[in-house]
């Protein structure tokens, strides 16, 4: 019977997706430990485990510099990808990325403001960036509530665009005011994004927000699908669409803002990884959300490995994620012309 075949096909797909999730997860653990040994000390390549035990400098290098950096890269990738997938679902729009509600530009403005007027100390810049990222979200939300045009989702999108534009012109202004020899390069470097000066302290300042936000999103993963539907339909299925969407937006922005505040602008992760995840796991967030998190971890760790080992000096991470992300996006688009039609 065609019906029982269909049911078998559904079960086979589910089993297949579980297997791929496990493979990605185990692979990510292996990648993580290999990356820990990868670097340019004492020679470019992998550090041998014996050397790690015997060499005091190697030991400090791995545990004081590489480990917190890798952990941050992991959480950065998971946060941006999860937030991107959730945003794309909540806004029923495959082209939004997690910073678009004024969060990315808000963080950039906060960081630049701090560098020009207060202090270039890492902690001050980070705190400012995080505060302004949340302020960007708050302003977008307030503006969306005041708009008298279209539905809630459309109003949020419009408000996000307007607030982002406001902050981004603010960044432009700050660049002109900045001292071109000392402050301007710092702003530029921050905007390019990177994990070069990562410490345990920075990692631990990000961790609680990432854990809180990501756990909430994971717990909600099935009901996320309902919130991608029209308001009336989502309501008819027993949800409070506006309230639940707002809660989930906050849960997605918290880890995003925390990640951006330590790493600067690391572009394209939150846009491309969710697409890849949906391609591998289908649209259902029960699979695509954990899938996006694992893939995000893979993507950022790989990019950061390149950033710190490819050249003698450090390549800003944001340049690599944008370059590789955009190429991957082009490849995805051209590989599947039919499925992208609206």
């Amino acid at each position: 019977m065609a019906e029982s075949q269909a049911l078998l096909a559904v079960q086979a797909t589910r089993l297949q997706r579980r297997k791929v999730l496990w493979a990605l997860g185990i692979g990510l653990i292996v990648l993580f430990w290999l990356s820990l040994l990868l670097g340019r000390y004492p020679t470019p390549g992998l550090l041998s485990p014996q050397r790690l035990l015997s060499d005091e400098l190697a030991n400090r290098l791995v545990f004081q510099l590489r480990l917190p950096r890798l952990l941050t890269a992991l959480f950065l990738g998971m946060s941006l990808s999860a937030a991107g997938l959730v945003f794309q679902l909540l806004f029923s729009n495959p082209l939004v990325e997690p910073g678009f509600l004024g969060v990315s530009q808000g963080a950039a403005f906060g960081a630049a403001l701090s560098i020009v007027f207060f202090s270039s100390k890492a902690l001050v810049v980070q705190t400012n960036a995080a505060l302004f990222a949340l302020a960007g979200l708050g302003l977008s939300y307030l503006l969306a509530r005041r708009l008298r045009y279209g539905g809630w989702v459309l109003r949020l999108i419009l408000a996000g665009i307007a607030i982002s534009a406001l902050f981004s012109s603010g960044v432009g202004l700050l660049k002109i005011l900045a001292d071109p020899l000392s402050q301007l390069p710092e702003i530029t470097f921050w905007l390019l994004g990177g994990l070069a000066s990562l410490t345990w302290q920075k990692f631990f300042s990000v961790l609680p927000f990432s854990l809180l936000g990501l756990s909430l999103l994971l717990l909600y993963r099935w009901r996320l699908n309902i919130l991608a539907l029209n308001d009336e339909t989502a309501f008819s299925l027993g949800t409070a669409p506006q309230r639940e969407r707002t809660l989930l937006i906050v849960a997605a922005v918290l880890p995003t803002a925390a990640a951006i505040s330590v790493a600067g602008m690391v572009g394209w992760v939150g846009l491309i990884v969710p697409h890849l995840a949906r391609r591998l796991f289908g649209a259902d967030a029960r699979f695509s959300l954990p899938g996006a998190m694992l893939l995000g971890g893979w993507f950022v760790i790989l990019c950061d490995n390149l950033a710190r080992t490819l050249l003698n000096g450090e390549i800003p991470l944001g340049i690599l994620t944008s370059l590789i992300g955009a190429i991957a996006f082009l490849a995805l688009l051209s590989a599947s012309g039919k499925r992208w039609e609206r």
Partner: protein
Amino acid sequence: MSKPLLVFDRVTFRYEPRAERVLSDVSFDLPVHQVTLLFGPNGCGKTTLLYLSLGWLRAEQGTIWLDGRPLPALGRRERGRWMALVPQSEYISFDYSVLEYVLLGRAPHLPSLAEPSERDIEIAFGALGRVGIGHLAHHSVRELSGGERQMVLIARALTQQPRLLLLDEPTAHLDLQNTYRLVQVVRELKRQGMTVLMTSHDPQVVLALADRVVILRQGQVFRQGTLEEVFTDQVLQAVYDIPLQVTTVDGKKTIQWL
């Protein structure tokens, strides 16, 4: 006759405080196990009335009763177990499989953070079978034709296991064959005891399905009653202001333009 499932008692509604009334003083009963059709010209308030029944919109004055309780007294999930909405159309942005999509109908039966179990999958699969698209379970909803998509929306509603089904213009985008199929599906659901409230512009669908008809005009109930009582030349001419005639062929009513 048993007591009605849904009662509109002098319901008035407007979208903005000072705007014109969309519905004024609307009263009608929805008998259980019957198909009631909301009929009337564009903009007469049919969809608004459907959303009021759902609880998505709140009446400005008057009360809506569901099974003897005022509608706002029901919790969100409880309401979702009582009734299901089949929207006129639904834009689907992502590649869900048909089964994944229909499974969302289990939400009102599950605690907040729970996921559907094997039992829920059985129920969803059963609903697909009832509307005749079980063989499409593993297809992507975006690959389906318009008629199949409409069936997916109905299957999702049935997965909610509701007692009241709200259908908004279910045949609006369907060709003749799919309209026929939809009529058969609704008839079968009624036979199994479902109570249905639906809107339609299509007199053929009304004639094929309706036990009772509520005709709205300019936000008010113009006529209500059985198909026999309401679907007459005089009433329809008055509602639409065009010359037409209701004739009976082989014991079945049809509508003719003059």
